[in-house]
């Protein structure tokens, strides 16, 4: 990204922030709804462990930590890549033409052009809760923290790759109106650690898709349950996926027919 792109992106973000501020009660309603969902799932996990000592080898605190980690990456991805959810209307109306003709990277515009500040607020809340919970329950060493945050960023890069794939696929498969929601449902599988799934599902969602690397590996790294080889695989996967996604986006753009414009 060029400095000019960053500046334009900043203006897009400010505009989006103003649109959120125009309806503050909606802002509160969404934050409240998302907090309810988060709290209720944690309550479920706590309730579950009233009758259990461990769940497939994981303790209650570890299960909660996996869930918090999932939410951190999921929320960060929604905050950054919300504009992807509005891509299809642009395609079917021919509105993408207006983006393509501007002297601004169209991928940056449709990927990062509309950050969701409700999720930004949620991300702040999630970060505070996760750091407090992790520090008080697991007492990680500085190196573990560092590895954890590096893998979180890696997870966000993987999420970026997925979203770019969704954008490319959206251009090619215009008849499907909920492609990004399929991605969301796939990621929802990771609200629990990937180890709870049986083979070959576990292998598919860890290495082929690779949701496990994205959501479960950061938490496992902090808990000391991840091997060095898997850490290296995680970073390699992120760069490979991003690279392939970018190629796919550029090739997909050639299929854009500007049908309704």
């Amino acid at each position: 990204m060029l400095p000019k792109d960053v500046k334009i992106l900043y203006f897009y973000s400010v505009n989006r922030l103003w649109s959120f501020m125009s309806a503050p009660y909606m802002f509160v309603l969404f934050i409240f709804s998302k907090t309810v969902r988060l709290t209720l799932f944690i309550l479920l996990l706590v309730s579950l462990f009233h009758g259990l000592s461990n769940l497939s080898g994981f303790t209650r605190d570890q299960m909660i930590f996996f869930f918090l980690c999932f939410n951190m990456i999921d929320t960060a991805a929604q905050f950054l890549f919300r504009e992807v959810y509005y891509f299809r209307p642009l395609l079917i109306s021919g509105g993408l033409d207006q983006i393509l003709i501007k002297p601004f990277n169209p991928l940056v515009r449709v990927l990062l052009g509309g950050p969701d500040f409700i999720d930004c607020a949620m991300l702040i809340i999630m970060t505070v809760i996760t750091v407090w919970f992790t520090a008080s329950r697991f007492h990680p060493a500085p190196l573990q923290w560092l590895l954890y945050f590096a893998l979180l960023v890696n997870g966000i890069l993987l999420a970026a790759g997925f979203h770019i794939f969704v954008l490319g696929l959206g251009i090619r498969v215009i008849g499907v109106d909920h492609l990004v929601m399929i991605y969301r449902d796939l990621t929802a599988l990771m609200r629990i650690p990937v180890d709870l799934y049986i083979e070959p599902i576990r292998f598919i969602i860890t290495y082929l898709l690779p949701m496990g690397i994205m959501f479960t590996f950061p938490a496992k790294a902090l808990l000391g349950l991840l091997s060095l080889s898997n850490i290296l695989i995680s970073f390699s996967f992120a760069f490979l996926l991003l690279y392939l996604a970018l190629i796919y986006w550029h090739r997909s753009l050639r299929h854009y027919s500007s049908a309704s414009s």
Partner: protein
Amino acid sequence: MRKYLTVFAVDWQNQFIYRLNFVLWRVRNILRLLMTYFLWRGVFNTNVSVFGYSQNQMLTYVFLVLLVQTLVTSAPSSDNIGGEIGNGELSNYLVKPVSYIGYWFTRDLSSKLLNIIFASVELTLLWLVFQPELQIPVHLLAFVVSCILAVFIFYFLNIATRFVSFWTPENTWGLSFLVIILIETLAGGIFPLDILPHWTNVALQFTPFPYLIYYPIAIFLGKITGIYLLRILFQSLLYCAIMYYFAQIIWRRGLKVYASEGR
């Protein structure tokens, strides 16, 4: 009645236009089931019985969630009513000799029928893949009645939420999102509600949510029997009536402020 049958027939045919769209929608429903299924499988790896549920009962619960959720919550009205009010398209319906609430209910029924057919096939395939031992229904008739009541409760609750667009046409999604979250978590789609503390379970009876998924499945599993069963069915009926009047009141008041903006 004939006009609604025609609406049903036309909508049924429309659903086959975007076939890939529909198939992927069904894939999403299966994905949602998998997380719950493997969570409970993990629980029963080291336990014979949890919260009064045997493994058979719990896996039956998880499988039935797909069926009941499909029946109750498949509703194209959810995606359209708010927009039609907001952009003034509602006016097209108001001048026709058809009830708007009846029209969308008919379209929802058509969607439910198609979804239920697919959900039955999916459940059969999932059963063949995972081969869990499932429980035989205890009160099949009561289960069917509770499902039908759940369909009505959901419909009236759903449209009442969407009718808020009369007052905030630019922000339909906020309240709907809250209701979706509450249904997602408090209707029993992820876990049976009786694993929560007793007081929570009792308190939830006073909301419409457990009547949508949890009670129908609990009746199927024989968790609710005798007088308690009759009481739950009566409460479902009562909620159905309350939601109906609630939706009607909001609809009538909404029409008074409706200005057909955008037309």
